[in-house]
């Protein structure tokens, strides 16, 4: 590689990673859906190095946006600690299943689940507060003080955590998918928190960002010690993602939940189509 090509390549990676950082911070995803196509299609980097960079971007995203969400009271730390063991257990099961399941069936499962999650997000009623009010209180959630409140438009809004067992099961499943595909599985975490456990959308995004950090740590350590992370690619990715999340976390606080939700549906649609295409190709 020539001298200037190295600098140029690093700058392109930095720019793409900034985009991934913004996407990740706004939707509670890792940003791999932006980084992997840019690295493989535009820069002709092999898929293994691109996946390694994607895992690092998930990690950088979680680490850099979590402090801002925690400071503004958006992340539910206790709920994150309750759901993380399920996610980690799922990732562990995923590591065992890697050798058994075919790649095509994995893509098929992931794509189908995303498609259903997208449908549920579209059909979900908008009057969240009314549903929250009439929702039955969960005994375990109350005992462990998992419910909380957050500030929106200068008002403090309280929320109750529902369906703890179904949510835990979904997080186990999300961890398994994350372990199998080497992703943070934020695509499943956010709908599980928002639609199943009835947590406001912004809190769901912030809490999912916190949770995917642990899953990404486990995956990244494996990639790192196997030598599948190229420092020359991952270095600019981390810096770009850190810059991008600074912008994305500000946007999350300022933009209304409805706009964020529609944008998230668009991203889900695009990713589910990609996954299903890979499954049937």
């Amino acid at each position: 590689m020539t001298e200037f090509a190295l600098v140029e390549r690093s700058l392109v990676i930095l720019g793409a990673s900034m985009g991934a950082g913004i996407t990740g911070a706004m939707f509670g995803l890792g940003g791999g859906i932006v980084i992997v196509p840019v690295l493989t299609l535009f820069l002709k980097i092999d898929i293994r190095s691109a996946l390694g960079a994607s895992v690092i971007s998930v990690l950088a995203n979680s680490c850099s946006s979590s402090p801002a969400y925690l400071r503004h009271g958006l992340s539910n730390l206790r709920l994150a600690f309750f759901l993380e063991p399920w996610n980690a257990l799922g990732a562990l099961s995923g590591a065992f299943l890697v050798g058994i399941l075919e790649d095509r069936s994995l893509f098929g499962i992931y794509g189908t689940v995303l498609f259903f999650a997208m449908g549920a997000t579209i059909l979900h009623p908008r009057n969240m507060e009314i549903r929250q009010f009439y929702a039955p209180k969960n005994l375990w959630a109350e005992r462990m003080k998992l419910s909380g409140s957050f500030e929106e438009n200068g008002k403090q809004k309280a929320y109750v955590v529902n369906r703890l067992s179904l949510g835990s099961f979904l997080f186990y499943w999300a961890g398994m998918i994350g372990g199998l595909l080497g992703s943070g599985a934020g695509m499943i975490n956010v709908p599980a928190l928002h639609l199943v456990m009835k947590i406001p959308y912004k809190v769901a995004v912030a809490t999912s960002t916190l949770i995917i950090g642990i899953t990404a740590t486990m995956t990244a350590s494996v990639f790192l010690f196997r030598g599948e992370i190229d420092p020359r690619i991952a270095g600019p990715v981390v810096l770009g993602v850190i810059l991008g999340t600074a912008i994305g976390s500000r946007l999350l606080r300022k933009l209304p939940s409805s706009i964020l939700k529609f944008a998230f549906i668009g991203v889900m649609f695009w990713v589910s189509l990609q996954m299903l295409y890979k499954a049937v190709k």
Partner: protein
Amino acid sequence: MSLDFQNPPSEREFQQKDELLRQAVCRVYRAGIVISAILIIAGIALEWAGSLGWKCPLMQRKYYSWHWETILIFSGLLCLTITPLARVGATLLFSIRQREWVLVMLTSAVLLLALVSMIISWSP
């Protein structure tokens, strides 16, 4: 002395603990991000400087066939990788001190599962 009927003492105490925990976790995250960003920026700067013809004496040396710029970036990535685990560890220490046994149980489970998962994945 004014009485806050909406926030009974136990609730206020709980909120204070929660706030302290949030601050502790934020500090761990910030430290992790700052250290890894410094290491990565230093590594990339060395790499760019080398590619643009600047001969740094540090870059001429190798450590086990690894260039120094690679070592710096790799250390930054490693620091970033352990930051979420450090957050769990910090919460575990905090919850032991505050005698929050539910949190102790949950954080121990996360740490244990993460370590088991890593050991299994590292083994050939």
